[in-house]
């Protein structure tokens, strides 16, 4: 069907202009700011053009920035891979028909709805607190040493709370994938004497490929922005152990009031996110083609 060009424009333009004004325009300003020296709390210093100074400091002079990039990559990879693993287990279990399936699915999805700050206060206090927490009571009971996970293994602590939240996300997409695999194919494999593992390895998993791909890609893009959990549970610490790129930008602007440097960091974050997304798309597309061939 066709539609007059002018009508089309009238329908589409408002949304596009709105999005451009709220996302593209600020990004162009971020780029512009990243070449300035501008400290909000020191107006007497003024605003001056400093070329690539902010970038050279960020990329080569700032050890915390490098740590923040590494932390971001490690924490994101940890969250996505563990969520994929657990999400797959839950999807396979909940795909079977059993009494109470509907309620079980609803309960399993619930963690995804919990707001990040609630997630963090609950895990940090009720569950992981070294003295009064639920987890430590039982781990010390079976003879393990009492441990403050967020202090001793801060990355693991953050990954744990985020995996709890993102497992349902993976599960949902993989469940949709499993539902798209025709039952006849699986039944045929069973008739041919395939073990459950063989059936999963050679039939379900390859057919699930596009869904695994999609879930990993989307989760990565969202998890790269993880912020609330870190803000509440560790404030980027101890030291800079859980300072990820988003958290570091937040610190640079809210505590350092440094517009130029934080903008340069922001630009780097966007570049990094695009590289990771492109890389993932290519990698996943290729693995999938190989698996199909």
């Amino acid at each position, binding site marked *: 069907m066709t539609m007059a060009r002018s009508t089309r424009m009238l329908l589409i333009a408002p949304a596009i202009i709105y999005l451009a004004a709220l996302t593209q325009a600020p990004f162009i300003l971020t780029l512009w700011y990243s070449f300035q020296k501008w400290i909000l709390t020191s107006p007497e210093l003024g605003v001056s053009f400093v070329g690539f100074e902010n970038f050279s400091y960020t990329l080569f002079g700032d050890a915390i920035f490098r740590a923040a990039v590494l932390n971001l990559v490690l924490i994101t990879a940890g969250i996505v891979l563990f969520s994929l693993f657990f999400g797959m287990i839950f999807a396979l279990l909940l795909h079977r028909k059993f009494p109470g399936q509907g309620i079980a699915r609803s309960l399993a999805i619930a963690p995804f709805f919990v707001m*990040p700050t609630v997630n963090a206060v609950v895990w940090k206090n009720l569950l992981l607190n070294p003295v009064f927490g639920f987890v430590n009571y039982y781990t010390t009971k079976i003879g393990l040493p009492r441990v403050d996970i967020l202090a001793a293994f801060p990355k693991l602590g953050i990954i744990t709370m985020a995996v709890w939240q993102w497992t349902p996300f993976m599960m949902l997409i993989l469940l949709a994938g499993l539902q798209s695999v025709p039952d006849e194919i699986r039944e045929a494999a069973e008739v041919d004497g395939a073990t459950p593992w063989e059936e999963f390895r050679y039939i379900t998993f390859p057919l699930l490929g596009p869904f695994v791909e999609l879930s990993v890609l989307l989760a990565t893009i969202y998890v790269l922005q993880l912020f609330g959990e870190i803000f509440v549970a560790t404030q980027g610490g101890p030291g800079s152990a859980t300072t990820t790129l988003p958290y570091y930008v937040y610190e640079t602007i809210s505590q350092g009031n440094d517009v130029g440097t934080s903008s340069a960091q922001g630009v780097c974050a966007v570049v990094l996110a695009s590289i990771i997304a492109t890389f993932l798309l290519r990698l996943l597309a290729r693995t999938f083609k190989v698996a199909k061939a």
Partner: protein
Amino acid sequence: MTARLRDGLLTLVTYILVLALFFPIFWTVLAGFKTEGTAVAQPPVLFFTPTFDNFREALTNAGYTGFFVNSVIISVCSTLVAFLLGIPAAFALGLFPTEKSAGTLSWVLSTKMMPAVGVIIPLIIIFKQIHLFDSIPGMIILYTSINLPLVIWMMRSFFAEIPKDLIEAARVDGAQTLQILIGIAVPFVTPGLAATALLCLIFSWNEFFLVVNLAGPHASTLPVYIAGFMTSEGLFWAKMSAASTLAVIPVFIAGWAAQRSLVRGLTMGAVK
């Protein structure tokens, strides 16, 4: 091992794992009904006389209710504005695609993928200059931009499912574009509309990065209130749990109601 026994065991394992996954939520809700002493007791207490004091206190605390009202106003209004802007675009892109439509849609998606740290600094500076910083309208403007890509993508996928004959017939009868949109297309996709609205509400309700950077005492929402527990009242677990429970209940209701369209929303309409 017989097939039936294996089946029963797998079901049992499923129950156990699902309950484990849900446990943190159960434990938080339970702690909301405890006294502060019972909440931190070791060994952890499962059976106790419930008290409603923590919930009553949260609901009568002006700070909490203020944040709650902000959350409601900001998420509802931003969803409405996103619908006003997004539905016409989704209608045109879904029912009357041209060779440029795919490009437009990818561009819309790319704005959603843009890390928030890439836009936050200018937003802080501009919002302070034009007095939108820490204001309800300011937050609505921002949250609309988070919801808009979701509305366009999801509603486009619903509009695309409308039988073309239906639209053609209306056109032959002389209906104008706006009449087709309001009279035929929108009523046809009502379930999709509801699901999209619920998802927008959930994402706005839980958003934290923008609100913590661009709002202060006036326009902050519930996630900020909860984050405040860590500094001011970190040791009052029962109060914190009650406030947390109240903060997530609306999302649970919305989420479970939207469950069937959840995957579609999370994948921007890619998986039906």
